[in-house]
């Protein structure tokens, strides 16, 4: 067998100068540009200022949907972007979370604040049970299996009308906290914002930890990670469950915010939409995921004016962006900026 040069080898041989001494603390300037400090700061700033631009309920709805999608996508990015495991079925977990909240509150009188964690727990257990056999698969076989899980969930939600209301979906009552109904964009904006900020913070922490390196490592060279002591199956299962739970939480939030759920939230295309958000913004980039979620939530709204043509344009944009920027928006832009910087220096 021929010796295969590692991919990426010989592309840029130039030694890179390093800016940060290792084992030391970062300077304030470097912290400003780091993801955890600078990135989180920017995110909080954007979230805090955005309401100044929102003038009506519709705009609040779009902003909140962005936030809900972003929660799913940040989680999915851990699985797809960092650990390199494809899932074409995460809308199923999103929908299960939504229906858990809807069913537990309407049919069993549980409070929404309890229904959400209950749903998340249920989805977590389900994800844990199917993760082991599913994650033995790789590549397109994994894509098929996750797709299958999503489709099965979709069909069950659609058919079990006695419980789920069937294809027409079901209403979800307004949550009340201490007698105050949680209703309207202004309230939900801040609820979703808080959950999103927490999610991003947890995700950034996880990525920059031994677990995060194990996930990236098993993506980059699975045998090498195994040999280094990484129980790759364990970590694949772990990140699968985490991403499913985040999808479930987002689903619950969506159910309570929109006060309505339909089986279509579990559809194959909803799953594809989530994955597209991950890839659009840039795989293995949490802030890329946020940008992807925001753009692809906004896009259909902008296209709504092109009555009839919105599908065509959406499909075209998906293809174009992926052809021109196969690595996604943020990594491509960062790469361009770096190259410009390097050229300027030399």
């Amino acid at each position, binding site marked *: 067998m021929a010796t295969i040069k590692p991919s990426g080898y010989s592309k840029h041989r130039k030694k890179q100068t390093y800016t940060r001494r290792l084992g030391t603390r970062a300077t304030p300037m470097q912290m400003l540009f780091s993801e955890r400090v600078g990135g989180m700061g920017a995110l909080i700033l954007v979230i805090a200022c955005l309401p100044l631009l929102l003038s009506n309920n519709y705009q609040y709805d779009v902003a909140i949907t962005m936030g809900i999608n972003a929660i799913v996508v940040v989680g999915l990015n851990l699985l797809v972007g960092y650990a390199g495991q494809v899932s074409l079925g995460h809308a199923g977990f999103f929908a299960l979370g939504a229906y858990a909240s809807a069913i537990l509150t309407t049919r069993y009188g549980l409070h929404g604040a309890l229904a959400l964690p209950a749903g998340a727990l249920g989805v977590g257990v389900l994800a844990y049970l199917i993760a082991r056999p599913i994650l033995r698969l790789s590549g397109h076989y994994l894509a098929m299996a996750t797709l299958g899980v999503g489709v099965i969930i979709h069909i069950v939600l659609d058919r079990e009308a006695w419980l789920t209301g069937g294809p027409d979906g079901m209403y979800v009552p307004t949550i009340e906290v201490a007698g105050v109904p949680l209703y309207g964009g202004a309230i939900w904006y801040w609820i979703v914002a808080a959950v999103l900020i927490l999610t991003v913070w947890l995700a950034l922490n996880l990525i920059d930890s031994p677990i995060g390196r194990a996930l990236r490592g098993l993506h980059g060279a699975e045998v090498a990670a195994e040999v280094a002591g990484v129980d790759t199956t364990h970590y694949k299962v772990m990140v699968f469950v985490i991403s499913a739970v985040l999808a479930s939480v987002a689903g619950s939030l969506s159910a309570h915010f929109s006060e309505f759920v339909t089986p279509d939230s579990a559809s194959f295309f909803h799953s594809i939409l989530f994955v597209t958000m991950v890839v659009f913004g840039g795989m293995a980039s949490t802030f890329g995921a946020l940008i992807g979620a925001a753009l692809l939530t906004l896009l259909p709204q902008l296209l709504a004016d092109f009555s009839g043509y919105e599908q065509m344009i959406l*499909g*075209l944009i998906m293809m174009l962006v992926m052809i021109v920027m196969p690595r996604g928006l943020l990594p491509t832009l960062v790469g361009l900026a770096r190259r410009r910087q390097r050229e300027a220096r030399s």
Partner: protein
Amino acid sequence: MPPVLVELLQFLFSGLASGAIYALVALGFALIYNASHIINFAQGEFVMLGGMVTWVLLSQGIDLPLAILGAVAVTMVAGLALEKLAIERARDANVVTLIIITVGAGIFLRGLTSVTLGKDLHALPAFSGNAPIDIAGATLMPQSLWILGVTAAIVVALHVFFHYTVVGKAILAASHNPLAARLVGINVNVVLLLSFGLSALLGAVAGILIAPITATHFEVGIMLGLKGFAAAILGGLGSGPGAIVGGLLLGVIESLGAGYISSDYKDAIAFVVILGVLFLMPRGLFGKRGTERV
């Protein structure tokens, strides 16, 4: 024959007919996968285009055989364009990116069809009437015979093409070892283009054959595409015989499941079976096994 057996035979007939359709779609997946390791999620849209374009040509007063030829041609143009304009420019992208490109292409084709041909449901006339044929008490529609016959003919034609023609052998060679194929002068891009054209043809034929039974619609390709993918995976990705067996098996299991268990869950059964098989055989029924070299 006892009614129980007649019923079983009936389920088998309908299962084999839809299974043959799945097999054709699965063969389309396998062809493109072999040439490029890409899963073409727009495969279902080829099926849809076949049916829809045949319908629109028929409605313009064109004869059925000519309409079919026209529909196949239009679908093949779509397949070739997809390869030339999108896939060829993104060959080096990773699996997920390529999936999104083909899904995007599918959305685009659906949108294009709904804008130009409308969103209504259309039935094609059966090729040779609707007089049911009685076999041991079970009925078989002439269209089912058409499906089985045409599928069998295509399978034979593909076999001859891949094993006895220079072009077919070149495609096979390129799928086994692209680098070696390039070294002996096979143009891998042309092979890729051919495989998309051929897959589009298979999809269109499947769509035309099934349209008299299930009617056609701009979204009919979604489920058929997913089932075809499932059949290809069931047989083992990239295996021609696997795709055929996977398709037929899926059709029969689905039909039996719908008949004996629950017709509500007809579509789910296929995916439950797929998951079960993958859990036991992670590379499908006929997929390549082997130890990864380290």
